[in-house]
């Protein structure tokens, strides 16, 4: 998954400031441009082409078979299910956390800001292992969970937990600077005009932050679907049951089914490309509102 994140410009910042004519000699410019394009070509375009080349190596029929295989389809379903639970959870958490951080001064505020970034700093594998330690059979809560017949690790709840943990910074990180820049005056105006807290949120706050929120949701979704490390630890790799798309790709690859592995991988690449396009479009709206 692509980790680079475009920073949404604060409201009112000019989108395309005129670039000053530079005095560099032409050959310097050419070399710099060539290096940039060469680098992107070597590390992004060539692998991208390789994925699709390998996926279609044995023709469209084989490609179709690979992605309609019941095990592959169940991996697709599980991936969407996990993202479909984790992303809404993170939207609720992200909006609440950004609201609290941008609007209130409370003890522990700076700790909260730091902790929100924790999943970006910790290796996902470690995150997965923490969940195993907590919820696994030998884990802290393990005995209690098994006594009540709840399985977390090697099951959907574990995958959702791991995905949620890894992706929870995305919405909050997008909204905190946006809400801090926008201030609270409009909300104050709404309350003085007689709006309830809920009306204020729906009629004033949400419209103000909607593009930033959507941007965060896209980032969050892309990461949720592509997450490998943390999910790998908690899923148990049970074919057709606890395999997400990235895990399925790995299994196919390990079994030397290269064509099938790349066919499934191409689905992930398409998801990534779609989210890139969505990000471009939404980022422009964030800048203009």
């Amino acid at each position, binding site marked *: 998954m692509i980790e680079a994140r475009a920073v949404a410009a604060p409201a009112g910042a000019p989108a395309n400031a005129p670039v000053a004519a530079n005095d560099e000699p032409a050959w310097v410019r050419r070399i710099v441009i060539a290096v940039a394009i060469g680098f992107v070509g070597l590390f992004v375009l060539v692998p991208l082409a390789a994925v699709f080349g390998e996926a279609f190596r044995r023709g469209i029929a084989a490609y179709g078979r690979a992605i309609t295989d019941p095990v592959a389809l169940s991996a697709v379903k599980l991936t969407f299910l996990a993202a479909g639970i984790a992303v809404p959870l993170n939207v609720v958490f992200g909006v609440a956390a950004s609201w609290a951080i941008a609007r209130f001064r409370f003890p522990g505020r700076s700790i909260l800001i730091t902790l929100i970034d924790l999943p970006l700093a910790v290796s996902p594998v470690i995150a997965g292992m923490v969940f195993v330690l907590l919820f696994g059979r030998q884990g802290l809560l393990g005995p209690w969970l098994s006594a009540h017949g709840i399985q977390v690790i090697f099951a959907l709840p574990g995958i959702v937990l791991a995905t949620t943990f890894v992706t929870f910074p995305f919405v909050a990180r997008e909204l905190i600077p946006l809400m801090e820049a926008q201030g609270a005056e409009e909300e104050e105006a709404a*309350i003085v005009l007689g709006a309830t807290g809920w009306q204020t949120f729906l009629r004033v706050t949400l419209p103000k932050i909607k593009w930033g929120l959507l941007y965060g949701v896209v980032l969050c979704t892309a990461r949720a679907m592509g997450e490998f490390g943390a999910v790998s630890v908690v899923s148990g790799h049970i074919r057709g049951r606890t395999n997400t798309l990235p895990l399925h790709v790995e299994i196919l690859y390990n079994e030397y089914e290269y064509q099938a592995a790349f066919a499934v991988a191409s689905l992930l690449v398409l998801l990534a490309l779609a989210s890139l396009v969505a990000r471009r479009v939404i980022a422009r709206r964030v800048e203009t509102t």
Partner: protein
Amino acid sequence: MTIEVRGLSKQFGKFAALDNVSLDVPGGSLVALLGPSGSGKTTLLRILAGLERPDAGFARIDGLDLASQSARQRNIGLVFQHYALFRHLDVYENIAFALRVRKRPRAEVDARVRELLALIQLESFERRLPSQLSGGQRQRVALARALAARPRVLLLDEPFGALDAQVRAELRSWLRRLHDEIHLTTVFVTHDQDEAFEVADRVVVMNHGKVEQIGAPAEVFEHPANDFVMRFLGHVNVLDAEFADGHARIGEVRLAVAEHRGDSHGRVYVRPHDVEVARTRADGAIPARVVRVTPLSGGLKVDLSVPALGSRLRADLDWERGTALGLRDGDDVFLSLRRARVFAQGEAPVAAVA
């Protein structure tokens, strides 16, 4: 609707934004809270609107304690300094907001919004977003939005602060006319004394979270309660003086002071228009030299050096007097002080005559 404020105090950390403030706003009047920044004007407004909670004291509107109602229930019109218009809503929906959240019938909302659009003369702008309006137009939309639900009182925070001089002047007189039409009890905050004097019936001069003086504009200007009010309202010459046996000694000049209680050392205040300039020496006149003559609207500003007082002095002359004297830089002249004021600490002003 009468506003009654008693003993309001508000502390932000160690900073006392309001310190035991009491004042009355008679129903239907327009009152200006006038003071430098940090004097507590805006805090007072925000407490009335319910956006801040006072540490002590209370405010009532027509006898009803405001603390018993949340900001939402108070139905107070508040116009923010930077308007705080809803950026995603057009002019029409901004004005309609208070009625929409009250779930009023569509026809009633429409009638009220159209009425207000006519009042602020922006009928053809109803579909514009705030970002497509000029500063003066935004200000009027903010006012219309605040009036939509027929508030009990109207509060305006630096309503003209962010506008350029000409728009300011137009809006000021427009606000005054509007108030004369609808007679809504109105409190507005300003740091501009011209603005306060032109628009308000009564002026509340504030400083460091305290009320320094309350009165009609002319009253406050003519009879400042203390040296702060004296210095804050218009230019004033401040002279260091020693007081003894009914006189103030400033440099080599002695002024008769009717009565002075307090320190032996203090200050004497002289308004520029109370400095009389003459070509010929009269009895008791003070010699001075013209440093610079500057034309002002309606007269001349004359900067004078006065060795006898050990300081510089500013005199304002009207056109007639100014042209009759024909002053030039470097001319020698003679001054007399029509009126000088002395303030004893915490006591009423003491009249002083040269």
